[in-house]
């Protein structure tokens, strides 16, 4: 046997794995929240009937989608010192228990802008797949554009594209691994850490793989639950398409 597995290293260095996992969680949870928020706004803008608003949203989406995520992270991190420009980030960073504010926030901002473009496109798809009659009926009742969107269009659109949005959330969790290239000590970073100390990269990678699998499955489950209990019911949406 050319290679001897030593799984006990994982126990010895479990703190590194835990730290990495928590860092990934921080990036993921905050990232998902803001990516969804920004993505929804951009998706609505992109679906807007106002030519200039939708054009602006198109520019935003194309710009942040076509530049690789790692390039965005590097650009923010190396070109600016975020905490100098935005002092409040330091306070937030402290609140989150971070040590390297600039790395973390650079990675976070890039993750948000990048993922929001995909969420925006998904939401736009959902809005445009609804029959036009829904918006028209709302308008004929005298509802403003915003009332129509909020009460009628958006709830149905979100339901339709909940699957693709779940995929994007999972992508964000996976993409958080890129933060390691600018020094954020998240899960993938820890694989290398453990490997460089113990030369047991294989075991470390296995553990980290399982942790990512867990995160992915957990997210899918939560999203399914939200779908079941918080979103409108499917049969309702199908029924309208006559």
């Amino acid at each position, binding site marked *: *046997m*050319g*290679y001897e597995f030593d799984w006990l290293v994982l126990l010895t260095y479990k703190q590194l794995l835990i730290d990495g996992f928590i860092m990934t969680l921080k990036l993921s949870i905050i990232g998902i929240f803001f990516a969804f928020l920004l993505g929804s706004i951009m998706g609505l803008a992109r679906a807007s009937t*106002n*030519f*200039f608003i939708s054009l602006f949203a198109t*520019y935003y989406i*194309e*710009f942040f*989608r*076509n*530049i*690789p*995520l*790692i*390039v*965005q992270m*590097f*650009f923010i991190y*190396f*070109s*600016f010192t975020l905490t100098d420009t935005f002092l409040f980030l330091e306070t937030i960073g402290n609140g989150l228990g971070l040590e390297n504010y600039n790395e973390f926030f650079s990675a976070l901002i890039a993750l948000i802008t990048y993922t929001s473009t995909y969420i925006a496109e998904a939401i736009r798809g959902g809005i445009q797949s609804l029959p036009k009659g829904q918006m028209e009926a709302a308008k004929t009742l005298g509802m403003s554009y915003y009332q129509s969107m909020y009460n009628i269009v958006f709830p149905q659109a979100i339901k339709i594209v909940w699957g693709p949005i779940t995929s994007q959330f*999972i992508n964000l969790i*996976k*993409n*958080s*691994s*890129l933060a*390691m*290239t600018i020094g954020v000590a998240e899960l*993938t970073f820890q*694989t*290398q850490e453990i*490997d460089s100390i113990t030369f047991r*990269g*294989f075991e470390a*990678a296995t553990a*980290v*793989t399982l942790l*990512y*699998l867990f995160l*992915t*499955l957990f997210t899918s489950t939560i999203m399914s639950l939200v779908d079941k209990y918080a979103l409108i019911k499917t049969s309702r949406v199908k029924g309208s398409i006559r």
Partner: protein
Amino acid sequence: MSDKLHNYFEKNKAFFFILNILLIITLLKLFQVYTNPETDFASALTFGNIKFMLFGMEDEFGGLALTFTIAIVAIIFSFIVGSLLGVARYSDVKIIKIPATIYIELFRALPLIMVIFWVYFAIPIVAGAIFETKVAVSALTSAIISFTLFESAYIAEIIRAGLKSIPKGQFEAAKTLGMNPWQTFTLIILPQAYRRMIPAILSQFVSLFKDTSLVYVIGVVEFFRAATIVNNRIYLSFEILSFVAIVYFICAFTLSKIAGQLEKKVEKQLHT
């Protein structure tokens, strides 16, 4: 009035396309003037530097040219492996369906950067363990293997979706003509599935193109790595990374627009 503008733009697409790119570059210029007023693009983007970033070192193949090469080679391999996996998962034969499913779900749950590391470090170990030989693979080879392993899982799902969209009647017709499963798939089903899947596969290619930047981590000198090497010498991050961002944007944007045009052509074909 905005309607008229809109109509005008619809009719002059090429003009609009170039206008887009110019507008974005202008906005970026404004951004730069505001955030980093003192820039030194001249020393950053010397002829030598640009040549290095686009083509790599004198006697080696690297830079943007390598980026494209990796993407094309990887997509071809992924396509082959992905097709097999997709058909395997689609089939009802448990012995091939289950391993295919496990493979696909595993690689779709992993970050690409992890796969890249994994493969790079695991190959010598696995080779050593199974074949009892000392094998060293170049970073480039390992990169292509990683991409193939990773992307094939996604292509497999695209193919499977395409297969599902084919009416059962096609299979039945092939059966009644006396074809065996292999013939059915290669002659009747897959050609139809591929046509439907072209848009999704093309968009996967654009993703792959952007993901080549990740091989930075194992030292392959493609475009991104080349740019960081230049940057480590001259420390003009803003200038170099702006250049990188713009080049990636132009390439990926153009590729996705071409993909969009192809998609329209395919749609026309499907509906004749």
